[in-house]
């Protein structure tokens, strides 16, 4: 169990060289080896989506992926979307439309929707609802999240 693999990974534009156990999840690697604790772990079986990050631009459940599988790839996490002083457009829409309460699931939704809007900059309401239904939120009843995604799309966040 103690064998480690050396990997190179680009996270939020910065290249890292890491020695990780093969069974270490990407989520744990991001959170505890790279101190990027904005990625949260809600179920560890790929349903809730709180741990969603982008791997080579596509949403991935980082609890279901091993860190070693990200060798040579590029990962984006919530920390790359903006800062408290300069929110990204999607983050701004979430605060404008009360798209979060406890905030635990929020990073996963932000990453999911970031990839979605890049691919589908002008989505229909049904398309938004279908994508938002990929992740779980226990606080908001999704009402604010759906409004936020609509507003972000309308404001051109994906283009």
């Amino acid at each position, binding site marked *: 169990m103690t064998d480690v693999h050396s990997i190179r990974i680009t996270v939020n534009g910065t290249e890292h060289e890491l020695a990780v156990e093969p069974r270490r999840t990407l989520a744990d690697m991001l959170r505890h080896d790279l101190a990027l604790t904005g990625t949260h772990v809600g179920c560890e079986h790929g349903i809730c989506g709180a741990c969603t990050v982008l791997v080579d631009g596509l949403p991935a459940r980082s609890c279901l992926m091993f860190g070693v599988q990200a060798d040579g790839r590029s990962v984006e996490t919530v920390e790359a979307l903006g800062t408290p002083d300069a929110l990204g457009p999607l983050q701004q829409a979430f605060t404008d439309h*009360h798209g979060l309460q*406890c905030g635990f699931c*929020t990073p996963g939704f932000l990453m999911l929707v970031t990839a979605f809007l890049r691919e589908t900059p002008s989505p229909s309401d049904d398309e938004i609802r279908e994508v938002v239904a990929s992740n*779980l939120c226990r606080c908001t009843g999704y009402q604010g999240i759906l409004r936020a995604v609509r507003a972000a799309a309308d404001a051109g966040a994906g283009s």
Partner: protein
Amino acid sequence: MRDAPSGPAAAPAKAHAGATPEVPAAGGWIGRSLRRVEDRYLLTGRGSFVGDHQAPGTLHLVLVRSYVASATINAIDASAALRQPGVAAVITAADLAGVAPLRGVLARPEFVATDMPVLAVGRVRHVGEPIAAVLADSAYTAEDAAELVEVSYGELPAVAGVADALAEGAGAVHEAAPDNVLVDVIPVSSPGLDDIFTSAAHVVEVGISTARITAAPLEGRACVAAFDERTGQVVLQTSTQVPHTVRTAVALSLGMDEHQVRVISPDVGGGFGQKCVVAREEVLAAAVARLLRRTVTWVEDRREGLTSGFQAREQFYQVRGAFDATGHLLGLDADIRCDVGAYSCYPVTCGVEVLMAANELPGPYRLRIYRARSRGIATNKTPIAPYRGVSRPQTVLAMERLMDEAGRVTGLGAVEVRDRNLVDAQEFPYRNVMGASYDAGTYRESLARCAELLGHGSWPGVQARALAEGRLLGLGLACFVEPTAYGTASFGMRKMTIVPGYERATVRMDPSGSVIVMVGTHSHGQGHATSYAQIAADALGIDPGRVRLRQGDTELVPHGWGTFASRSIVAGGGAIARASADLAGQLRAIAAHLIEAAPGDVELADGRAQVRGDPATSVPIDELARTAHHAAHLLPDGLGRGLEATAAFDPEGTFSNATHGAIVEVSPDTGGVRLVRYVVVEDCGVMINPMIVDGQVAGGVAQGIGAALFEELPFDESGQPVCGSFVDYLLPTAADLPEFEIHHLCTPTTRTPTGAKGMGEGGTIGAPAAVLNAVNDALAQVGASVGRIPVRPTDVVAAIAAAVSRDPVDSRRKAQ
């Protein structure tokens, strides 16, 4: 009566007219949908949740949990686990000799107190009960080692449900309760009840059952415990709603004074009640940290959360109502059973659902003759704890089914029968049959408005046209009153040995003129940092951006009771309003001295103090703050020399009200239920931040719909939970819910300094009844009905099949 602005696009609104607040709303910040100050750090991944913290040298704690429901523990062999590299220790009950069990007590004869040991002592009573704790240098190593711990069980027959528990010859879950009844109360038995039922024009009876469910906050429970040699303190970081209550429990269990325990709760990823009681794992982490003098972290995984975390609401109601010929409710008779699981949660005990069910069943309806028996029955299942609304979703379900049936048998229909029985505006304050005093509300108005919004008047035609197309539509209503913010007097009546209720706030202005608010409530998604700032800003005449909240650290904030039972905006907000008013008085006195005016003539607004109507006398509040600290020699003794006020508020209870309405379409082929519309008309008095209020309503409704249609934690006959992941435990997704239509009426309460009532649970309370009534309205067209939630597709199909077999011609004709 008016619809308040809804959502962030709404224009800023002043506090609602008619309020009689103690604190004048100078700045008009109360009532505005300000964006939340919490959002910026949460949206950028800069939050701080317990599981984020893994200091070097931390030991990871993983529990060995029972996989049988009822057994003696004959032996525990940890030798193989201890041989694993990286394993530091395996702790069992034998290592925790000085650690007392959690023991929730109601000091009343109808209650049997039982112990919940921190680790099982010789006996396990439910699957998932913690038996041993493995500590290792990584969570991965600890999990592997936990699988190597051999537990030798002597299996016993499991008491897998209420029927098992009450059966002749059933085994006892606890020796102290040979009949498995831990609580058995008859809190009311009005004389003359039997005569009323004998002579009543109509007697209506309903049976309701609700499945065991769980709060399932997205962040599971988590702790980091350490022993600080410098202060001699156990420092416990934990994801809790109630930091001071955790401190009390840990101190009692570990035999320490409370000052020797510091509880810190950073960001909390949802709680919904599950984190308002003390988990044995919290005490365990603290005990192990003290024993080993190491930092210990435990982060629950989802399987643990769904099988071992506190559950809720497995209840059974048999309710009879006596109505006169004109549809007035004359008498109510209820028998209630709650499956409380294997242990009593601390401190509220397993009586929490049982007592509330009997006490609050009458709800918003006028009633003078009432009898209720309510029992809490021990089973070999996971213990229960409060979950948002506690027993109210079930009491409302029972009453609202009863009202629908009464509307049917009297011919009055669902709206008219309710309207005749709801407490009328001129009856407030209304003292109900249990002695509770309802402050003013809009019970009848909310019903009328909700029915109108749903198009109730034209509903029969809409429903008939759909039926002609082979579609089963249903409309359901639910009226309820939401008792919120119990104070010490109300909690004291339960006879808990730990009586919560008050809240205490310190409001401190620093030399720069910024304000720190410290209070014992604990926001976990409710946006207190925003709402509380609005309250303080209005009292102090400053911008809410100058106000910061400190919470969740027993070393920093006054003793308080945390966030649960829809209490924070009333109890915490009330204490903050009072302390802020006191501090405002200090500022006015300082300003009066500097500008040579009478304090009563000084007003605080827009960050300045001045003689009312005389801008020439204006002084910045920042300057007053600086003077109070850095130039106090200019002030007479008794003024300045710091700027701080502390005040407590112990509420007498506020009563929000609402009517929820749902329209559903039921598929007779698949049994699926689709929500078409969901309407809420609610009244929580003054809304401090309407956007946050709407968010609380929406989140609550989603949870209530989950309970009505999706969520269930089944156990098999041997007490095995058969649901251990989100694949099986179905939380509602965005695809399952319609857009909620939320409307407000506003009756400010005179019982709080701000005019606000508590409202955090209402969404969850109303939704199951509205949805079940809608489903039954649809099914009534084919002669079918269901009385259990969640309404699974199989239940619908079976109900329709049963109706067809009872009355084949009529049911088939209607269904076609």
